[in-house]
């Protein structure tokens, strides 16, 4: 693979430019559907882009006494991780041949998908603000709580695909949703996705009415735009990742029809996320930990692993 081709993959398609466009579209769908659920009109289609561009033009304020470099670097770290994760996942979807990708790209993708949350923690602590620190410590607890069931749930498609940890092979080798174990793991993973996206009911870290957006409270201008973009990208990447490992992905093999079906799957996940976030109040961080480590999520994921090992 030539460096130029690599750069194209990462920066244009299916990397940054492609993910950016879809992130904006997904952010718009999120805002529009939320608005309709709440009897509001909602923004025009290009509103997320207007917001992004406007934020880029605003002054960047670095808090006194904060760790300046870390404070400004953290949003970039999150953004680049989200871009790379998107590139990896889409590569597996677009060219799902067994030899494509590299051994363990699933594990790399899981790591990359965790980095945006870590960057939030870094940025929060670097901003030398007590509200941000409290938000960061909540985000830390949140990562601890949802990563366990998420990883456990990911074991199921690996087992169902015959032990491969290549995204491409998992995509090809699985028909996970037809297995009961796959369905259970999928549900657990959807709940974890909601927490990974930092949306209600798992938005305790940024809780507007308690912590005034927590770790992001000191951010302004371009870094804030990067954070917002990262979150919108995650809103796009996470559903695609989940259908890639659990539900057959978006393949180009079957022509236009299979692309449409794949897109509908992603949209379905997006709608589930939006509805979940509009029909529940925020739960406390201790309740979130109890929820994720309790029988309903971790228990379900473990049960799914056992079932998949038994071949169900």
């Amino acid at each position, binding site marked *: 693979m030539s460096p130029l081709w690599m750069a194209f993959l990462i920066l244009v398609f299916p990397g940054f430019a492609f993910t950016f466009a879809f992130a904006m579209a997904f952010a718009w769908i999120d805002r529009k559907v*939320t608005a309709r*659920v*709440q*009897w*509001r009109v909602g923004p025009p289609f290009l509103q997320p882009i207007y917001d992004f561009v406007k934020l880029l033009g605003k002054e960047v304020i670095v808090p006194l006494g904060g760790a300046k470099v870390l404070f400004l670097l953290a949003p970039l770290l999150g953004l680049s991780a989200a871009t790379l994760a998107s590139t990896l996942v889409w590569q597996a979807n677009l060219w799902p041949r067994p030899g494509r990708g590299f051994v363990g790209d699933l594990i790399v993708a899981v790591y990359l998908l965790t980095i945006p949350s870590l960057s939030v923690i870094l940025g929060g602590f670097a901003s030398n603000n*007590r*509200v941000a620190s*409290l938000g960061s*410590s909540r985000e830390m607890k949140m990562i601890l709580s949802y990563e366990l069931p998420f990883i456990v749930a990911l074991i199921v498609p690996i087992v169902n695909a015959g032990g491969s940890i290549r995204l491409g092979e998992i995509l090809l080798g699985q028909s996970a949703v037809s297995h009961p174990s796959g369905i259970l793991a999928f549900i657990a993973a959807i709940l974890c996705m909601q927490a990974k996206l930092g949306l*209600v*009911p798992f*938005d*305790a870290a940024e*809780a*507007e*009415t*308690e*912590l*005034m957006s927590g770790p992001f409270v000191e951010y302004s201008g371009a870094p804030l735009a990067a954070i917002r973009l990262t979150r919108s990208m995650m809103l796009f990447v996470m559903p695609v990742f989940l259908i890639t490992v659990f539900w057959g992905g978006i393949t180009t093999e079957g022509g236009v029809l299979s692309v449409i079906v794949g897109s509908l799957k992603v949209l379905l996940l997006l709608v589930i996320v939006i509805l979940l976030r*509009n*029909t*529940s*109040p*925020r*739960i*406390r*961080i*201790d*309740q979130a930990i109890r929820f994720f480590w309790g029988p309903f999520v971790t228990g379900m994921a473990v049960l799914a692993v056992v079932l998949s090992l038994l071949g169900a």
Partner: protein
Amino acid sequence: MKRTIIPIGPYHPLQEEAGFFQLQVEGEKVLDIDVDLGYNHRGIEKICEARTFDQIPFVVERICGICSTSHPLAYVQAVEEIARVQVPERALYIRTIIAELERLHSHLLWLGLAGHFIGYNTVFMWAWRYREPVLDIMEEMTGNRQNYAMMKIGGVRRDILEQDLPKIRKMAEDLRPVLDMFVGAVMDDPVIHARTKGVGVLTPEDARRYGAVGPTARASGLAIDVRKDDPYAAYDRLDWKVITGESGDVFAKAAVRLLEIAESIKIVLQCLDQMKPGEIDTKVKEIPPGEGIGRVEAPRGETFHYVRSDGSNRPVRHKVRAPSYVNVPTFKATCIGQTVSDATIILAAVDPCYSCTERMAVVDAGAGKRPVEQYDLVAVSQREGQKMLRSLAGKVAQTTLEKKLAEGYRRIGWKAC
């Protein structure tokens, strides 16, 4: 662990108005809490003492936008007590209808805000959507969505037109299924239970100790309600009951308010049935010397007005005590020991009205403390006055200045210190 202070205020998404709550926390746990008010003191009582009796309802209506009929109602009742006026029957019913419609929209407003505070924005939007018809009816009846200007000494300013009666009835009846929906959505939601049950419990003893009033006290099981205890307007002719809770937690406060909406609908419908045509105003000419009190059950609790008249056309003393003034301090009993997440919804659960609670706060910046006694206040005022005069006077000779100051103090009866 180190104690840190988490500030809620002076400007914070939790509050619509300026108020400063400082939570002393250890990790997530609230160890102590301190409140600062007085960011927007307007001196309403003093303004009232410089206005004629008829002008004051306009002023007190603007103490609070949400209880904008409770304050004038309490005031006119106080003045009517001085003047010994018999208010016409129809005016009493109109007062009751306006007061209950106000309770309706205020409780719906709180429900929406409470939803917003625990991150449930859908409840926020829906509650405010269903609050709109109430405001529309208010506009149709009185001309205003808020600040209705209906109360006057001796009666009400406008009659409710015959053609408006069916509209009010329809609005009230349409609200019933909505209320059922909210009761279902809020009272049966397991996540809301997890967030509100057993959170911020105000025991009946504490409620009594802090002198809590309104839904805050009723949620703790104290059946106090001015409408029953000291009936005014037409409440003694109507059939309704005082809603009380038992547990005193946030959930009970929400439940009490939701069920009170149902009672308010009942009251409004009864008023519409019982109201007979007739006079709506007695022409009050003179306010004799004397003093009177007015008590009104505002949506947040008892609003109390005291007026003293010396026979002139304006009161010599007018004192207002709004319900939030006694309800807000209960957070001392409810917040401490809870987490930061819960502290916010507990603070919001008393439905604090900052504009009603606003009191003057004096900060002695030089001494770095708050003067509390009158003597301290005088000392601060004199020192600052001298400083100001010196900086203003510039070239004026020192002796002239001091003479002027001494003269000024003599005039207002203070001794220089």
